[in-house]
């Protein structure tokens, strides 16, 4: 059962190794001539005004929270979708009610303007 996942693990490791090897070859082959200007952060030719890790809009945070809610929903739907034929009408209506509650929340956040991005 779990042994069928061994190739997957090895594939991931090979993918990681491929990236490491490519970047290593590059660092060996390519010249290294660093200077002050080359190593400074790119900002259209200006000296960087301030630290680049600045404050950002709270809406990104809001989107992230909404994402977690919906992604959890999808995680719940996955097993339900696979066995829908076995669990019959009760299973179907249970998920309809669950989706209904989610839709009510979705309409609420829509009306509240959480999805606006002017």
């Amino acid at each position, binding site marked *: 059962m779990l042994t069928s996942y061994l190739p997957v693990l090895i*594939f991931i490791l090979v993918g990681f190794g491929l990236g490491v090897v490519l970047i290593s070859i590059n660092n060996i082959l390519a010249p290294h001539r660093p200077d002050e200007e080359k190593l400074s952060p790119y900002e259209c030719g200006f000296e960087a005004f301030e630290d680049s890790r600045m404050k950002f809009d709270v809406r990104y945070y809001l989107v992230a929270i909404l994402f977690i809610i919906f992604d959890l929903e999808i995680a719940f739907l996955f097993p339900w979708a696979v066995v829908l034929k076995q669990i019959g009408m009760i299973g179907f209506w249970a998920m309809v009610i669950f989706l209904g509650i989610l839709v009510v929340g979705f309409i609420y956040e829509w009306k509240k303007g959480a999805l606006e991005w002017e």
Partner: protein
Amino acid sequence: MPETPLTLWASLPEPLVTVLVILFKITLILVPLLLSVAYLTLAERKIIGWIQVRMGPNRVGFFGVAKGWAQPIADLVKMLMKEFIWPRKANRFLFVLAPIIALTAAVGAWAVIPFDDGLVLADVNAGLLYILAITSLGVYGIIIAGWASNSKYALLGAMRSAAQIIAYEIAMGFALVGVLLAAGSLNLREIVLAQQGGVIDWFWLPLFPLFVIYFISGVAETNRAPFDVAEGESEIVAGFHVEYSGMGFAVFFLAEYAAMILIAALTALMFLGGWYSPFPDTATETPMIGVLLGPGIHWLVLKTAFFLFLYLWFRATFPRYRYDQIMRLGWKVFIPVTIVWLLVVAVAVMGEVPPWFNHPL
């Protein structure tokens, strides 16, 4: 006993043999994949060139055939020889880790892709769940790159990209649930087997809105035009990879194209019947070309190539979306449509609507 390669092979311990066989199979997938990536870049430049009435790359090449064919090789050599700049303010460890993570996520997903009936590296029963999980990891590469670069443009690109990718991932996830409902399995091979038959039997017809939304979300997930605000050359220079040079940049590029091919192949597998032929009945009767008309890996390749062409066509045709339009499309159009269609599919599955949902489990 003389040491021949065969006896040496037989004397190896069992686990080592298993790993070596797996590594050999991985090579068989990875080499064609990397070649496809290389020649997809050439195809992109050629096709967009033709659409814009230009020639595209037409210089690099030898043996006198079709000039331009060696362009990807020349590009690779050039990238390898270019200096890998370590920006002074960057967090060096995360800076070099970010492209590697992006590549790992884009390449690792190929482990569970079936190319033909039984032609798959790992026939795991939670294939689609694994795909959803590992393609989600791709966004980490972008966020880490933006943060570690410690450059304003990079951070802006990473923020945009993160919000965009998670918005479209929800629509994508709902579309996948629709496929699961229709196929009743998480295993990609069984999802294709559930579509056995001709064009009418494939899932694109009953799941049509999900099919369209899945592919468009896929374009947005891979940060391709018209959703490429994470790079947005005209606004934030190159976005999250503005500080990368040499192979750091090339590895991001590699990851992006591998992810494009992945999305195209997944769309073909889940909605267009994978390796099934559009001529199920005429296939065996026709002499000579009957084999070609039957099911096989060549159909999967053709369908994948079709979606890849759509990618390039979109890029040449559509102007870039504005950021608020992208968010509106993802949250206010795709998510409501997918939720409604999910219920439609669930009802159809419960009602065993032929010809898609009336087969026994």
